[in-house]
């Protein structure tokens, strides 16, 4: 059966023509999109929002002396914490480095206009207690905790990922529908041939298998194209953001996902096949 089977699958792939090409491209887009999302999600989870990462707390002190005093007391109360005091001058210089276009304005301002900051790195599990401790001190006027913005980033990332994955899923459903239509068209075009095959003793599995494999191949080809595109994208991004890497195992998953989507579409398309009396 194998030679007949693969020859038939090849014929069907060729006959699927433009519709087959659309299916392949759609799967490629869906899988590339899914791969990008997956990699970004993994990057955020593993690098930016890692639970073992120390939290950063920034506190504004009334005076440099007050900052030094609070720092000493804090390190005594929380030995695992570490930190330093940034004087107003240092803060101004850092701001000038970050925003060089504002350097004229920043350097023209009085040094007293800039706060004295206490920058602390603390274990995540202690960050709430340290923040509370700092807030209770009269020498401190403002406390900002990296956990707050990280939580906001995480919430936003979760929402974006949910929408993105929903879109990727919708695209995959679209792929299934396109493969379904391709297979249905092929089945309709080959209706006479299928009837003949039955009359000369072909089993349903002998008749259906080439169509299922055709759907699988369309999906897997699209998925492979998606994996190649994703790999190309990762090479492009690597030069500008080396930390952004492909999620492990994402490349082989894409052709498989495409193949499964194609197989599902083909199976649904074959539902149109009339059965024996």
């Amino acid at each position, binding site marked *: *059966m194998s*030679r*007949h089977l693969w*020859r038939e699958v090849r*014929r069907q792939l060729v006959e699927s023509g433009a519709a087959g090409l659309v299916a392949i491209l759609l799967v490629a887009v869906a899988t590339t999109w899914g791969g990008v999302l997956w990699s970004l999600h993994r990057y955020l989870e593993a690098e930016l929002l890692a639970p073992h990462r120390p939290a950063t707390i920034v506190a504004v002190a009334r005076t440099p002396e007050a900052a030094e005093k609070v720092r000493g007391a804090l390190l005594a109360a929380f030995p695992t914490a570490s930190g330093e005091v940034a004087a107003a001058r240092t803060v101004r210089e850092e701001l000038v480095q970050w925003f060089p276009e504002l350097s004229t304005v920043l350097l023209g301002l009085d040094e007293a206009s800039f706060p004295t900051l206490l920058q602390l790195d603390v274990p995540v599990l202690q960050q709430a207690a340290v923040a509370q401790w700092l807030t209770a001190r009269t020498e401190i006027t403002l406390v900002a905790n990296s956990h707050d913005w990280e939580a906001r980033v995480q919430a936003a990332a979760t929402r974006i990922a949910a929408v993105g994955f929903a879109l990727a899923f919708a695209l995959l459903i679209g792929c299934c529908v396109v493969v379904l239509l391709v297979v249905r068209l092929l089945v309709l075009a080959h209706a006479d*041939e299928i009837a*003949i*095959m*039955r*009359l*000369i*003793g*072909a*089993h*349903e599995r*002998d008749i259906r298998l080439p169509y299922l494999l055709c759907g699988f191949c369309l999906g897997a080809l699209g998925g492979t194209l998606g994996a190649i595109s994703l790999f190309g994208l990762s090479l492009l991004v690597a030069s500008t953001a080396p930390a952004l890497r492909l999620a492990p195992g994402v490349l082989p998953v894409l052709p498989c996902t495409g193949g499964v989507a194609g197989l599902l579409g083909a199976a649904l398309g074959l539902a149109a096949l009339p*059965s*024996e*009396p």
Partner: protein
Amino acid sequence: MILLEDIIKSYRGRPAVRGITATVEKGEFVFLTGPSGAGKSTFLRLLYRAELPDGGRIVVNGHDLVAMRRREVAEFRRRLGVVFQDFKLLRRRSVGENVTFVLSLLRVSEKEQQRRAYLALKQMGLQHRMQAYPEELSGGEQQRVAIARALVLQPDLVLADEPTGNLDPERAHELMELFRTIHYQGTTVVVATHDRALIEAHPARTLVLEKGKLVRDGWGITQ
């Protein structure tokens, strides 16, 4: 070999076969004849289970076709050789592939498929056209390919539905000689035809149908 008991079949209330009872023994050569619309094709379609009767019992090669399960139909048909008036060749496959296809269903090795297809086509004088596609062949050649396909599995029973319908008289007689040869080799052959001249030239047991009824069962057309 074939047993029909009180077979009834109608299409949308219009009777096509009415109460036919007949038997065909192993090794017989039988003509099935009658005017157009007499029910010959329906009779044959019932024999290879392309249709199910509305009533009655059909046993072919020991299989009760009414009680047969769907998944058993393919296996049953592989024991038959069916030849159609319109050849029913697979258009997108070469002559060789048309013949080897039925062998591939039985998971016969590639080499054996080629060998048996070559022999079957050689018997039909078409071994040199294995790579050709059906549309490149004449009607007579296509019919011989269809016969090669029907015979390549060495079936116990050959059913032919108007096999000479698309052939000129000379080719038709050649084809009948071929069926005779197959018959002499021990195969049961049932040929449906409305061509009285063909039956006169190759006399054999003849079942005559009219308006879905079996009106005569005897030797030749003139008796």
